């Protein structure tokens, strides 16, 4: 019997094998790899050198508060902190009540809070105790949420009440002495960006649903009106709609009604976003099987009841991913208010660049603004994925 000499098999595990498989599998792959390495080197070496030596990052530290809240009165800053504490309470509560569905998000918030504490301690800013409090509140409400009876209802209700309450807290009112009104032209920075995003999205949803139903209506006049509105809005740039809201809206209102710029922008966003959300919702409506209508009809539900209790819940659940996408893209689009003169993150960046001390720090300031948007969008994307999983989108 002869023994067959077998070559040892080609290395299949280990770093060398990984390199061979993923970077140097063929000659053109190897060439591409080398090209990419060269490109990375050519791009990142000067960028890193600039970031560590030439860049003046002091501009960020000096203007951090401006970035966050704009010209919001500094003596009223406690109100902004209160919204953050309430938010961490809500996140903690949701974590306690909904466990897995909210855990990742809560952990991310905890991580962010811890990072803020460390950063504040490192730079010796006096905000580390506030962030510590926020983290403490989150954990406290987690424990409360674990043992809360009817937690599901309370947490849902709390989230719905949160946004109007925050609006009241930020805007203030003349009826409550401890909450003096703050003129909306002082709202700014990240605060304004987030407010516009939330108002624009949640304000547009009812209108969007109505338009979607209108577009699928059997009544021709209502259908053509909805189609006309949706296509008109989707056919023009957002900035022209904001421009209209800022300049034309007052012309269309009675003489004694002159809404503030921020309110006008919010109206513009709602009118704009409604058309896009209508298309999202329409997608969901089209995905509902005819059998659902027929079954509801057979059970004796009226047309309105069928819509409210059978069709819309399923349609909206189906389009949750699309609605989150709209949310994220509106978050980016709020930056356009800088063009009509509101002090959102982008406009604040421009004003910082006009400060005599920090002339020529464009890259530092814009990179920081990029970082803000990017970080929030990562969080939103992650949050939306968890919500989709919790709602069972695409699995039911």
């Amino acid at each position: 019997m002869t023994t067959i000499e077998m070559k040892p098999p080609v290395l299949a595990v280990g770093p060398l094998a990984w390199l061979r498989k993923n970077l140097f599998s063929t000659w053109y792959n190897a060439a591409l790899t080398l090209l990419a390495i060269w490109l990375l080197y050519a791009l990142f070496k000067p960028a890193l050198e600039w970031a560590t030596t030439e860049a003046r990052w002091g501009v960020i530290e000096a203007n951090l508060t401006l970035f966050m809240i704009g010209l919001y009165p500094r003596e009223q800053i406690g109100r902004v902190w209160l919204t953050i504490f309430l938010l961490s309470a809500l996140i903690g509560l949701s974590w306690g009540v909904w466990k897995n569905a909210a855990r990742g998000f809560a952990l991310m918030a905890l991580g962010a809070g811890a990072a803020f504490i460390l950063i504040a301690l490192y730079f010796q800013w006096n905000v580390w105790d506030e962030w510590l409090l926020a983290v403490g509140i989150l954990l406290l409400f987690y424990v409360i949420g674990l043992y809360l009876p009817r937690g599901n209802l309370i947490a849902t209700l709390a989230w719905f009440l949160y946004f109007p309450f925050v609006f009241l807290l930020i805007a203030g009112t003349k009826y409550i002495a401890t909450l003096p009104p703050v003129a909306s032209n002082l709202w700014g920075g990240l605060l304004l960006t987030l407010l516009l995003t939330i108002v624009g999205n949640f304000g547009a949803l009812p209108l969007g649903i109505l338009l979607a139903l209108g577009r699928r209506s059997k009544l021709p006049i209502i259908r053509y009106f909805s189609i006309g509105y949706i296509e008109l809005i989707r056919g023009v740039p957002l900035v022209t709609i904001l421009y209209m809201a800022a300049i034309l809206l007052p012309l269309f209102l009675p003489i004694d009604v002159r809404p503030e710029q921020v309110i006008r922008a919010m109206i513009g966003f709602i009118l704009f976003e409604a058309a896009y959300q209508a298309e999202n919702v329409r997608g969901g409506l089209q995905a509902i099987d005819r059998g659902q209508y027929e079954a509801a009809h057979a059970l004796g539900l009226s047309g309105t009841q069928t819509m409210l209790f059978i069709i819309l819940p399923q349609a909206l659940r189906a389009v949750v991913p699309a609605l989150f996408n709209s949310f994220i893209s509106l978050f980016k689009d709020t930056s356009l208010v800088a063009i009509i003169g509101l002090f959102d993150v982008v406009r604040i960046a421009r004003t910082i660049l006009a400060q005599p001390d920090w002339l020529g720090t464009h890259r530092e300031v814009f990179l920081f603004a990029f970082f803000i948007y990017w970080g929030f969008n990562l969080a939103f994307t992650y949050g939306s994925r968890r919500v989709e999983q919790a709602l069972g989108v695409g699995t039911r």
Partner: protein
Amino acid sequence: MNIKAFWRDIRFLKILAQAIFILVLAAAALYLYRNVSVNLARQGMTVGYGFMKNPASFDIGESYIPYQASDPYRRALLVGLVNTLVVSGIGIILTTIVGVLAGVARLSSNWLINRFAAAYVGVIRNTPLLLQLMFWYFGVIIQLPGVRQAIELPGSIFLTQRGIYLPWAEPTATHPAWRVYILFAIISIFIIWFILRTAGQRASVPLSPWWNLTYPFVPAFIILLGAFLQPEPPLRAFIPALSGLNFKGGLRLTPEFAALLFGLVVYTGAFIAEIVRAGIQAVSKGQVEAARSLGLTNSQTLRLVVFPQALRIMVPPVTSQYLNLAKNSSLAIAIGYPDLFSISGTVFNQTGAAIETTVIMMLSYLSMSLFTSLLMNIYNARIQLVER
């Protein structure tokens, strides 16, 4: 006799609902109209397009049609429209290239290239375009070195803070004579196509694919003929070169145009990359396996099986990205490129004609959108699966 009460008749109710809807709309329109007329009367203004004939008396940074400050407003608005069309048109072509490259790179088996494309898509898609435009303009192009220290890239491309200079071609004296040859070369392609098609239909066996070589060779022969008969080529290289305090020759992209074009292309390219990736991934694996088992090579599989099917999935979303690019070009105002939106704003500031400028602006963007949709819908209908 049992006559149904007419107010319970569904046909009547439908008409009633629509009538009420129209009444509500009309009431709202009337209310808005009254407000507008009261407001305008208070400001002592009237609505009308009479102002369009008055001289604009402002300068425009760059224009592709002749324009001077003494031209009327309508000319200024036309300049803005052309500027928007130019940047959108070039942008759409370039962003398709960038998007397809990045989308394919995203599917590459090469780990580094794959990660590189993923990082590009991730960062660009998650930050606002306005911020990116400002970064490219204020953070990069304006901070380029002055003319004398210009950065030279291979191929005589010069980057300076006064703009980007590219080599270009300029027509020579013989250019008109050359048009005849080029025209004949183009016509010859159609003639070849026609002859080959009729011959192919008559023949019992398919024509040899070698006949396809006539497509490049015949036109090339006509052009070559021109090269013998004409004293000089139709175009001359037009290379930018430093002379005195500025560059002479070549094609100059203003900093505003360059930043806007670059920003739009990079931003939209990231979205197209995701569409391309999703489109290619959506082609079912069985298609690839079937193609391989039929003996098609790797590139044939990609070219003849995967890509045509992926294209079908990709066209509608890519269309909406093209539209987005055209609409997003209105952000040019933030970096001072005189597009339609920016010039409309200037006209409004000078004349106070808010309603008129808005109507012009909206109609222009709307017709641009509708026209692009129309073209892409025609294309989409052509490549759709023809089912029997």
